[in-house]
């Protein structure tokens, strides 16, 4: 006989879990009592949002499901942002939450929250366990569901009494559900139709998304491109799925995408989307998106197909087997004129910034990170200008190297995700590129990196602003800067504080040191490369604060609601 708590720990071990993130509380005391003897590592976080983002970062970097355990009520609600982040981006993870005892549910008991109700819309699936006998099966199912099809987070809510009850139950699988049969192989006739369209196309483009990475299909994509010589644009979450250093790499499309990517999409006669879901940040005005193109869409998620962009050739399935089946059917076609056209955009209008200014720019720092790490590091980001600049100025050459909240755009993701990534990939360098706004949302997790000797490097690009919002206010709201100034000076009249303190707060270097990490502050261009090299060779976490030019904007920019051809290159 085993208790429900023991069944839970055993089921996690059976699922191959090596690292669990979390923080205890009243309704998970039984779980943590068994966890004390568990065969896997446990990472005590300081906030449950951190636990969820760490599990997420771990999953993005390794491809294996992340796992976290939180208590009921506030523990679970704190994890919600992390679940929603993972859900939007299709990240496999399992979250176990405690719940008040079964007979107390619905009584507004201490630390009760309707966790399955709250998380229903932000998980791929969730469970409230009502019977201890179900635990082994439910947890096996949770791991199966979170990784298969379009991956996503699964939450299992276990009441305290169920953790204590005893059972003989075991589960030996397979974890199948009659309502859930993801399709992996694409329909042969659709693949044939796609091959025909590719062979006939004169101006084709591939749009590669996160699906390429989730399906481990980067080698197949490269093989397809080598054979067909079709240029590739990679979405934010698809970065690394195709090497940015390849001559046919057009880089990122969309709102802050490259001229080459956006023009190629706008002029192509065939657009082959592989595991990209046509997010509105990619398409711009939908009616003007790829107006001349036949649109083919490979996706594991049937609901992603024709959701915003009508697909002419839908192929439902996993990118890997589909690309494998496609490869022998496509032929090398001579498309010199198109490729010359594309190459001109690439060379004449690459991502750019003022490289000659003596001032320290965020873009410069990011480019240095890329150069010093030569595309070998895992780069995590927060959300804002620095995130877009990372996509623009870091060159990613292999999958699972870029860890960023794309769909939900969650500030505060970068640091905990970097910690999760480093715990999953001990042999890789991990750098978090963060904004001075975002980093303050989960700074407390730095302690975890210190405690576990994780040599992550956190590069804070301090522009004194919630920069991306400041940019929108400058461009679209008459430069009336409302609630975006993080430094104490230069604020709107109703935000000014007395007494006026001109210094920037907090002092990130001291804050880093207070957490036990190494802190550095850079203000000069020439300091950057050396500081990065020093930090990367350190065995301890290092926080490098870079005081960067405050009012830089991310360009190009497609204004919201405009078409991809309406790129703004600079404010006049």
């Amino acid at each position: 006989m085993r208790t429900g708590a023991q069944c839970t720990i055993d089921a996690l071990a059976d699922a191959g879990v090596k690292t669990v993130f979390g923080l205890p509380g009243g309704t998970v005391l039984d779980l943590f009592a068994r966890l004390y003897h568990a065969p896997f590592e446990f990472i005590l976080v300081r906030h449950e949002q951190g636990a969820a983002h760490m599990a997420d970062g771990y999953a993005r970097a390794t491809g294996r499901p992340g796992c976290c355990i939180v208590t009921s009520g506030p523990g679970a609600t704190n994890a919600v942002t992390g679940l929603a982040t993972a859900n939007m981006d299709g990240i496999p993870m399992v979250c176990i939450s405690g719940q008040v005892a079964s007979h107390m549910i619905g009584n507004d008991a201490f630390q009760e929250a309707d966790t399955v109700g709250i998380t229903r819309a932000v998980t791929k699936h969730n469970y409230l366990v009502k019977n201890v006998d179900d635990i082994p099966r439910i947890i096996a199912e949770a791991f199966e569901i979170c990784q298969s099809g379009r991956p996503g987070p699964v939450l299992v809510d276990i009441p305290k009494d169920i953790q204590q009850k005893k059972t003989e139950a075991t589960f030996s699988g397979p974890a199948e559900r009659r309502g859930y049969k993801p399709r992996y192989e694409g329909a042969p006739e659709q693949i044939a139709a796609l091959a025909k369209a590719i062979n006939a196309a004169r101006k084709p483009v591939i749009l590669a998304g996160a699906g390429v990475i989730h399906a481990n299909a980067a080698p197949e994509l490269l093989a397809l491109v080598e054979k067909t010589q079709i240029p590739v644009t990679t979405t934010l979450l698809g970065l690394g799925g195709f090497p940015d250093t390849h001559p046919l790499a057009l880089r990122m499309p969309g709102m802050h995408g490259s001229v080459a990517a956006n023009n190629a999409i706008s002029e192509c006669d065939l657009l082959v989307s592989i595991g990209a879901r046509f997010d509105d940040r990619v398409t711009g005005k939908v009616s003007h998106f790829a107006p001349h193109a036949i649109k083919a869409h490979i996706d594991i998620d049937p609901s992603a197909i024709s959701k915003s962009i009508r697909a002419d050739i839908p192929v439902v399935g996993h990118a890997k087997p589909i690309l494998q089946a496609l490869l022998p059917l496509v032929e090398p076609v001579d498309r010199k004129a198109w490729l010359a056209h594309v190459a001109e955009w690439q060379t004449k209008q690459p991502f750019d910034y003022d490289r000659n200014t003596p001032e320290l720019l965020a873009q410069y720092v990011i480019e240095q990170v890329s150069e010093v790490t030569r595309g070998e590091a895992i780069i995590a980001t927060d959300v804002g200008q620095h995130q877009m600049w990372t996509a623009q100025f870091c060159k990613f050459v292999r999958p699972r190297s870029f860890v960023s909240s794309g769909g939900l755009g969650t500030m505060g993701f970068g640091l905990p995700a970097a910690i999760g990534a480093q715990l999953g990939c001990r042999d890789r360098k991990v750098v978090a590129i963060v904004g001075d706004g975002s980093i303050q949302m989960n700074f407390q997790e730095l302690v975890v990196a210190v405690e576990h000797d994780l040599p992550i490097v956190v590069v804070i690009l301090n522009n004194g602003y919630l920069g991306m919002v400041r940019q929108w206010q400058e461009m679209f709201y008459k430069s009336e800067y409302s609630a975006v100034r993080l430094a104490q000076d230069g604020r709107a009249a109703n935000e000014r504080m007395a007494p006026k303190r001109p210094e920037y707060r907090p002092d990130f270097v001291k804050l880093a040191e207070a957490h036990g990490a190494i802190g550095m502050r850079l203000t000069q261009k020439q300091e950057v490369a050396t500081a990065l090299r020093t930090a990367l060779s350190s065995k301890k976490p290092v926080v490098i604060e870079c005081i960067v030019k405050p009012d830089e904007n991310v360009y190009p920019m497609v204004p919201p609601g405009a078409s991809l051809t309406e790129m703004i290159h600079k404010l006049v």
Partner: protein
Amino acid sequence: MSKHEDGIHRHIITALVENQPGVLARVIGLISGRGYNIESLNVGPTQDPTISRLTMQVPGDDRVLEQVTKQLVKLIDVVKVTDLTQEAFLNRECILVKVAASRENRSEIIELAGVFGGTIVSVQAEALVIQIVGEQDHVGDFMELMKPFRILDVSRSGVIAMAKE
């Protein structure tokens, strides 16, 4: 797809779902969370005690319907989804309607109910309660006819449906 007088297309979707707590909340949450509408929703058991059948009537064009259907299929607890309006199907709805009835027009109302195969389920001093069961259009036509008499209250079951084949 049926097109009503109001010009709105309506689809009737049936879904076989796991008979488990929370499934209805999942379906309704999905529909409202994604900004779709449902005009009626009906849940009942099937021959298989582990499965329930949902029947819902959804207004919207084919594109909306395609998304609703795909999103429903994505729910782990949803076993099968059919858009009945794509095929030959039977539909029924049951209504109870309370109509103001004076001594002068009472017999006229009773006669009309009879023509529609209805049953008078309650006779009150100033009103009649009539039950009508039939195809949605049939039920709708009866409601139209009752309007001039003043409808005091109505309770509709929502449509249930089944593929013919």
